[in-house]
């Protein structure tokens, strides 16, 4: 267990908000797989980003060392999180910023709504932020009569389309440009009715729409990519400049950030600013990196707030085998290389965090006993492409397997009939825990051969095994196992090669 103590009750506080999926992954995946347009869009987009990433990563001779450094720094942060948070709070406060601590999504939402109301406004502009997606801030503010305008182009597309993000970096990755044009025509006020799907014109339409909001908004809301403990500095990394506008123009700036985003100091940015852009957009450097430290009189926002949010992070940190999931810097490289994500898209994961990182982070934040969420760790063939791509070397396949173990164990106490999988695993445990047992079972192989019939194929199996035969045959088993052949028919050959190992 972790020795983290935050002055809160010792029981883990699990996260809430847009982390609880509403249907199991296989059910959602089945539906999403049928969306051929989305699959084509995703395949094109993920393959493009993949190739770009590989190219820029290959340029750095010390990429592996950078990954090691990123991983080590994040491990250090997690091991010293309480002290670093206090150091950050001290420095942030000293520079005129105000810190708010939020235990869960509800607390974070109500703090933000309260701060907005203090400014007597009902409109806010937003920088793209995963933390505010996670807590469902926009929906909460809407209930409070406050309109939040997303200013990142892709977030705007999603918001105007009454849709949900399907990717953490490019949230409208599931839409192609024709679909974007249609959304703009239907939903964007004062849009040119002759708008085409040319990307430049789409961007110009969005820019005109957003410029009005930037200039009138009194409050901006952001997330943060990094927080530097030694100076109380926050950082946002972005591509479009909308973030820079939000961070500098309004009088009030409210940032919502998970407590795991800390770095010890500015020298750590040397590592992370090489890792993040190359891993996320496949660029050597992103166009806009904004850093701000508290309040500067007469320059930029004069009311600077930070909501430091737990929402399940302490619970994740307490998981010895899962805690490195908190090292994630939200680059999205894992989803771009994931063969499952490529086919199902992000919506199938039901959570703010899709793809391989979502399949571990979501159940770590909510607890594995959250019923539908317990299907997420199985949403992987364990191919390992995510681990290879992760800039901070999170061993996602190993954590997926760990969480599967947690899921199975959490259901052991339940008094219900064993599932087919339970029975298969119990039987398998008997068969595979002894050469004698397996040998005995292999005597039955000719029966399988019989079942396969004349074309030597088994084409239909009952129960969960029907999942296999829905698209694959099984060859007729051999009449003799290797073990049996070895015992009866193999003539041992003594070593003639005296070559030493």
């Amino acid at each position: 267990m972790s020795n983290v103590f935050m002055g809160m009750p010792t029981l883990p506080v699990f996260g809430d908000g847009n982390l609880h999926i509403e249907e199991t992954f296989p059910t959602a995946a089945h539906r999403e797989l049928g969306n051929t347009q989305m699959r084509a869009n995703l395949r094109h987009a993920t393959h493009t980003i993949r190739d770009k990433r590989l190219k820029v990563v290959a340029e750095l001779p010390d990429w592996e060392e950078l990954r090691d450094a990123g991983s080590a720094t994040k491990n250090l942060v997690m091991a010293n999180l309480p002290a670093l948070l206090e150091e950050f709070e001290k420095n942030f406060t000293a520079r005129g910023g105000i810190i708010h601590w939020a235990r869960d999504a509800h607390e974070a939402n109500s703090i933000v709504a309260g701060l907005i109301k203090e400014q007597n406004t009902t409109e806010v502009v937003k920088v793209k932020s995963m933390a505010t997606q996670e807590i469902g801030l926009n929906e909460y503010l809407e209930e409070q009569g406050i309109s939040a305008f997303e200013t990142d182009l892709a977030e705007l597309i999603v918001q105007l389309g009454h849709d949900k993000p399907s990717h953490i970096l490019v949230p409208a990755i599931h839409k192609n440009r024709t679909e974007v044009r249609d959304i703009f025509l239907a939903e964007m006020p004062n849009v040119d009715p002759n708008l085409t799907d040319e990307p430049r014109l789409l961007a110009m339409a969005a820019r005109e729409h957003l410029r009005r909001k930037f200039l009138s908004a009194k409050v901006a809301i952001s997330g943060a990519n990094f927080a530097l403990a030694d100076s109380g500095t926050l950082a946002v990394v972005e591509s479009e400049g909308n973030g820079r506008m939000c961070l500098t123009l309004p009088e009030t700036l409210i940032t919502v950030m998970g407590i795991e985003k800390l770095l010890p100091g500015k020298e750590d940015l040397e590592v992370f600013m090489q890792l993040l852009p190359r891993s996320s957009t496949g660029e050597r450097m992103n166009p806009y990196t904004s850093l701000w430290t508290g309040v500067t009189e007469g320059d930029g926002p004069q009311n600077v707030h930070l909501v430091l949010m737990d929402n399940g992070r302490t619970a994740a940190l307490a998981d010895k085998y899962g805690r490195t999931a908190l090292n994630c810097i939200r680059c999205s490289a894992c989803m771009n290389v994931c063969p499952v994500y490529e086919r199902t898209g992000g919506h199938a994961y039901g959570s703010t965090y899709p793809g391989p990182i979502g399949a571990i982070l979501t159940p770590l934040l909510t607890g594995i006993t959250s019923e539908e969420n317990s299907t997420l760790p199985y949403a992987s063939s364990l191919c390992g492409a995510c681990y290879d791509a992760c800039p901070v070397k999170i061993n996602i396949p190993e954590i997926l397997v760990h969480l599967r173990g947690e899921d199975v164990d959490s259901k052991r106490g339940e008094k219900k009939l064993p599932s087919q999988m339970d029975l298969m695993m119990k039987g398998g445990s008997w068969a595979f825990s002894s050469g004698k047992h397996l040998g005995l079972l292999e005597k039955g192989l000719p029966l399988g051969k019989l079942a396969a019939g004349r074309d030597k194929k088994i084409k239909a199996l009952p129960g969960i095994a029907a999942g296999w035969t829905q698209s694959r045959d099984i060859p007729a088993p051999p009449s003799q196992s290797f073990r049996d052949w070895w015992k009866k028919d193999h003539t041992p050959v003594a070593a003639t090669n005296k070559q030493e190992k």
Partner: protein
Amino acid sequence: MKIALFATCIVDAMYPQTARATVKILERLGHEVIFPSGQACCGQMHINSGYMDEALPVVTNHVNAFESVAYDVAVAPSGSCVASVKHQHPVLAERCGDAALKARAEAVGAKTYELSQLLVDVLGITNAAEQLGSHFPHKVTYHPSCHGMRSLKLGDRQLDLLKSVGGIEFADLPEADQCCGFGGTFSLKNADVSSAMLDDKARNIESTGASLCAGGDASCLMHIGGGLSRTKSDTTTLHFAEILASTITEPVSVTGDILVGKAGVR
């Protein structure tokens, strides 16, 4: 050298010719092959499905089986089972609180090699035609299975061995590094996604015009081969050990049936 064969459960029961081919290659090189009879399975199916309590006796059995006999190295014709033995066994033992088993599993893992690792790194095989007499006059493509490629970092060992087989015509597989979608019980629990991945793999294989797709893991090959069989494709799958075992005098057909020789019938 005395080499202990870990046949793996799927090869033992479903693809015995792959293990026989492994034996044949090693004996051809003059090594003594032994088969520790207590062996059964690496336990990967249980571990990857989250059934850790059920995996423990399977892992314990493997460690016992490969501790009970004397040998120089152990070999398995599977990247995924070797990755499990090397990486998952110690982790499982630790999780189950058995420090002694962890140490023993690490010792067994350190002596265990995937077939191409053993051939290239330990036995110095770089040219299959010259050093093994391998001959296989067919058009072949190759799928590098994920665990061999990423967990064991096999690189091009299997591929290079295949390319050095006499008479072989080699065709590159598009998107070769993409998972075939097997993933053990993933293929049952998420059968739709698994099938979608398989579709793409099968299409890429067929686009090469090869008569078969070679690989180093019987489970992935059963998955890919099962998909190709379902669509009545002319292409099939075959373990690279069988291609290396094939010679001019004892050729192996594209379906893996040994055409001539006393190695027994399939």
